[in-house]
């Protein structure tokens, strides 16, 4: 089941001395320098306004660095053509902090979007979408419109949409901000399962309890700088255990 890539892994992501500023104001990030191995799992922490969302935006190519380089799947993000940008983005699943669900589409249509964009067969879509929505506890809301759902339910729709196409890289911006601990844990198990299937994961969060409970390395942002902190526990043991008992959590 686990397919570990024993050949020399290509870096998923590398920030080279990156500075980023919006058109107005001082630099939000500076001297950010780090790289991610394939199939790694990181939390991203930092105070509100520290620049977590901004950093993620650079990864999904909504922003370019003002200085330095961002290298994504081995390519400098500045040199990508419009078509290449689309192709790269198809390998990235994003949970937006503000969900960004399409209001006039029901839950399953929203979740099916990445598969449709990828050109997946309709029969596969019909099978996978309800399955995943069942897993995130929304089996009863397949045909609901987003605005009729609670904040936490909408968040889970956003998460389902981000993971449905099994992205190579998953960027989750505050994915558990609106749900209780039980659901937060369950969602983390979902990310871990994806991780075990080969996805590189970054979860930006304020939730210290979550960070301390799950044993992954941290990227910590403070005053525009990024620090890397190691996780507290042995990842694999913890992961297996949680998966076996996740339904009773």
């Amino acid at each position, binding site marked *: 089941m686990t397919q570990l890539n024993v050949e020399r892994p290509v870096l998923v992501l590398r920030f080279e001395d990156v500075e980023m500023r919006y058109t107005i104001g001082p630099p939000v990030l500076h001297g950010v320098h780090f790289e991610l191995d394939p199939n790694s799992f990181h939390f991203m922490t930092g105070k509100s306004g520290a620049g977590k969302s901004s950093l993620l935006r650079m990864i*999904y190519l*909504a922003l370019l660095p003002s200085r330095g380089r961002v290298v994504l799947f081995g390519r400098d993000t500045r040199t990508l053509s*419009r*078509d290449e940008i*689309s*192709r*790269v*983005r*198809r*390998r*990235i699943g*994003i949970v937006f902090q503000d969900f*960004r669900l*399409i209001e*006039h*589409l*029901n839950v399953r*249509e929203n979740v*099916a*979007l*990445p598969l*449709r*964009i*990828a050109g997946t067969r*309709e029969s596969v879509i*019909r099978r996978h979408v309800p399955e995943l929505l069942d897993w995130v506890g929304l089996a009863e809301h397949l*045909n609901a419109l987003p605005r009729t759902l609670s904040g936490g339910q909408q968040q889970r729709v956003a998460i389902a949409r981000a993971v449905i196409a099994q992205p190579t890289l998953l960027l989750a911006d505050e994915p558990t901000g609106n749900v209780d601990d039980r659901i937060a844990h369950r969602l983390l198990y979902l990310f871990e399962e994806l991780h075990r299937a080969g996805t590189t994961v970054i979860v930006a969060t304020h939730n210290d309890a979550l960070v301390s409970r799950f044993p992954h390395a941290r990227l910590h942002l403070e005053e525009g700088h990024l620090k890397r902190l190691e996780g507290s526990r042995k990842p694999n043991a913890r992961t297996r255990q949680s998966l076996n008992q996740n339904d009773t959590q």
Partner: protein
Amino acid sequence: MNWGRQNERMVNRRGSAVFLGWMIGSMVYMAVLASVGALYAQAISKRWTSALNGVVTIQVPEPDSPTLLGGKKTRLAAVLAVLRVTPGIRDVDLIKQDNGRTLLEPWLGKDLTADLELPTLIDLKFLASGINDLAALRARLNQAAPGTVAEDHRSWITRVAALTNAVNRGGWIIVLLVSTVALVSVIFAVLSGVSANRNIIGLLHLMGAGDSYVARQFQGHVLSATLPACIFGAAFATATIFAIASLSIDASPVDGSSATLEVVPALPFDIEDWGIVACVPIGFTILTMITARLAATIALRRIS
């Protein structure tokens, strides 16, 4: 539910589709009618011009009298002899005096008509090459039998033909104008759709959708409005045409015997003509598709 209609719904439609549908529907209606009018005019024109071959009529007064040159030859025989050696004539059709008499009897009475010496009428049909010089023929006929008249109806038929040709061209110009208006309205619908759905398009882009994918959504959206519109527009136009056609059939003579030349042919369409008419709504659908795709592709390039 709604799985099948996915493509139309990804971008939000609302009112614009309804407006576009009505717009395209009425345009197709007009275009189909105009094309039928154009083809109808063309058919009439074709009849008249092909009828040109039979429109010189020769009147030979006193056909049975001998010619001035003496001998036993009658004037009619002299005229026929001239016609026989004239190149370009396909058919010489003698209209018998008896026919003429029967026509006159109701007015003049049997006795009078029996005594009357009617001129013989000859219809000439020409070969496709036609006759070069009618004046020369007239001169020769008059020499053979003085008083012979050759009547030529071609000039006014040429004028009728010019008129119907103009109607034909006008019809196609209307088709062209109406299509242009339809395509412009498609362009505006797509442009306003793109700007109204800016957020959703931005999101689709972030999820890795390329411009061609998003453009296809707009194309699907336009198709869902224009396809039924084209079908309904064409259906109503066809109904209108047949309603008008049935009126013109009622107005034409019932016995159907008389006219060798039908003045106003009732829907003289063969399968090819209907094929051309069918091309109008089909062409509309295809053109709106292409236009929608192009407009969307161009508009999307301006959204990052």
